[in-house]
């Protein structure tokens, strides 16, 4: 029914607005409560990201890795699975890209492509582990993926510090990447790199995959009602595993793109958390790949704003994590605005059946 669809959209939008408003209100409250120079902090957080061309560039740069991980989360959650592997797949992707970028000499262009493919393959492999364990023996994918994230983190850092370490550097850093592997900057004056184009293309592709192919159709049925999917002859476990493998490849490729677009050496000492932020982005985008770029830009804006605020005032940038958590809570709250939605649906139904005048409102 058309009017029902419209009501769903309106309620979803209202929920998003509430989530964003509550988050902004929370920032305001935190800043007012803790800062000795609140006006300065507000300005830095809300306006700061738009004050220079370079900073606007920063927003886009921050959005790029989030688009990859958000797509991964959409695929995994879409198939009704709760694997948290996006974080680990992303980080193992950075390791894969680093190994190719430092040690396999190839011509420009091909080098980046190979590095990204290796990153994707490693991400897919890691994501396959919890999926297979769940498929074969019903091991909870939530716990195994969380444990794997830690294992991936330590393993990647082990590889960097024992096999690829720059000996002359005092802090942990890999040897420099070969120039041929780096992703080109596409807008001068910023660090916006070719990875963002890849991310946007992938958003379109995943939208197509989810909503215009039989695989996507099956995936959505499995996610909505696995029993029904099973009875209608869909190979449920196959779809669940495939969705997680594709998701792992996406997140891994995101790790590779982030590394080769933004860095010339591997410098992380712990997993950077893009997988977790990807969950918030996926929810903000209402699990629609076409809205992922927008949601990622918004989250990127918050991150850049928080960093500027931390530099210019006495409020630390961790505020942004609190905002992310609150957003996840608000958007995940199914029953929020439920009564309002119910009333709208009832009224629309009345209007359609022409009963409007007869029914007494109580």
């Amino acid at each position, binding site marked *: 029914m058309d009017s029902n669809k419209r009501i769903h959209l309106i309620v979803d939008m209202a929920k998003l607005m509430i989530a964003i408003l509550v988050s902004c209100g929370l920032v305001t409250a935190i800043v007012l409560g803790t800062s000795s120079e609140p006006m300065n902090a507000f300005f830095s957080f809300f306006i700061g990201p738009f004050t220079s061309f370079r900073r606007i560039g920063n927003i886009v740069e921050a959005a790029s890795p989030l688009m990859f991980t958000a797509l991964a989360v959409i695929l995994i959650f879409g198939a009704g699975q709760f694997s948290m592997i996006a974080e680990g797949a992303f980080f193992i992707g950075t390791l894969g890209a680093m190994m190719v970028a430092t040690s396999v000499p190839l011509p420009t262009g091909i080098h980046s492509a190979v590095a990204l493919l290796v990153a994707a393959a490693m991400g897919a492999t890691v994501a396959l582990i919890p999926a297979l*364990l769940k498929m074969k023996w019903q091991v909870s994918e939530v716990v*195994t993926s969380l*444990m794997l994230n*830690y294992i991936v983190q330590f*393993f990647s850092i082990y590889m960097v510090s024992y096999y690829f370490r720059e000996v002359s550097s005092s802090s942990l850093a890999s040897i420099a990447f070969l120039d041929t592997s780096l992703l080109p900057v596409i807008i001068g004056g910023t660090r916006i790199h070719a990875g963002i184009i890849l991310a946007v293309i992938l958003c379109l592709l995943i939208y197509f995959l989810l909503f215009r192919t039989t695989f996507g159709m099956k995936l959505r049925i499995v996610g909505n009602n696995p029993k029904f999917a099973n009875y209608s002859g869909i190979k449920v476990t196959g779809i669940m595993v495939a969705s997680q493998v594709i998701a792992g490849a996406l997140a891994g490729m995101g790790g590779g793109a982030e590394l080769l677009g933004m860095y010339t050496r591997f410098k992380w000492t712990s997993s950077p958390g893009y997988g977790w932020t990807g969950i918030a982005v996926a929810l903000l985008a209402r699990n629609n790949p076409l809205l992922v770029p927008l949601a990622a830009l918004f989250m990127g804006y918050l991150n850049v704003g928080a960093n500027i605020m931390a530099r210019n005032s006495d409020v630390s940038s961790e505020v942004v994590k609190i905002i*992310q958590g609150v957003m996840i*809570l608000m958007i995940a709250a*199914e029953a929020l605005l439920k009564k309002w939605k119910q009333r709208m649906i009832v009224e629309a139904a009345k209007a359609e059946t022409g009963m409007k005048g007869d029914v007494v409102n109580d």
Partner: protein
Amino acid sequence: MIDYSFIVDFLFMWIRVATPILLTSLGAVICERTGVVNLGLDGIMLISALFGVLGSAWGGNLFWGLAAGVGAALIVSGVFAYFHLMLKANAVLCGTAVNTIAGGLTVFVLQLATGEKGSSSSLKSFSFPAVNIPIIKDIPVLGDILSGHNVITYFAFLMVIVITVFLYRTPMGLRMRAVGENPSAASSVGQNVVKIRFLAILLCGVMAGMGGMYLSMGYLSMFTRDMVAGRGFIALAACAMGQANPVGALISSMVFSFFDGLSNILQLLQIPSEFVQMLPYGATILGLTVYSIQKQRQKNKKNKEIQQNVIK
């Protein structure tokens, strides 16, 4: 030959590292029994670890630390419960949100309180005392292993018994198990499912909070950033492997923390520390997998027996 004191030291440490996992997995048992998967345990532990330290530093004694830690755990669990039970948010997403908030909030508050983002070492906070048990401490080998632990460690082991009695011998425990077993049936005989689950989540929060406080006020004597490091998730795995049974949770917690303790010792050897740090997480995956295979075999066997009985 490994010498005698090495083994005693190891056993002593094994109990030490098992404490936070045991406490939290006992909390998870209560939640799991009422049918709630609490993925936010990690975050609750982290927040209690910080607020326990802050409370004791500002209040000037251990009591305020305990009060602040438990209070913080109750508030966070209350938020989790409200969103999950009242606003029908998915438990996994709620838990993720709690963990995300905890990661940010603790560093933010730590910086406000101390001006640093790494640890609370500049604060003068209090720790729970170690206790010598009168008679046991004089028994030669056993005394060295079992006596002299932190008071929270003894509390944790005591809680295994208390929670077993609570779940299987009290009306409230029966209600909780009924709600977890079949919420519709429990609700049809007049039980308020939401209320009982809410209570279970709060109780679970207190246990996880104690586990968190042990880390910052017993195991170490300060709060450090992200100090929980996935112990809440390991506790959840221990609860699942222990079949949501307090004694089962105790056994699985001991199994998982064995590798935690082992990694502490191996760090002294010439093995790359990253590999050693992976050990508890790898062991958890392995343990959970072995348990799931076992469980599936039993299920298949039962199904076969039923089939055969039907054919007869």
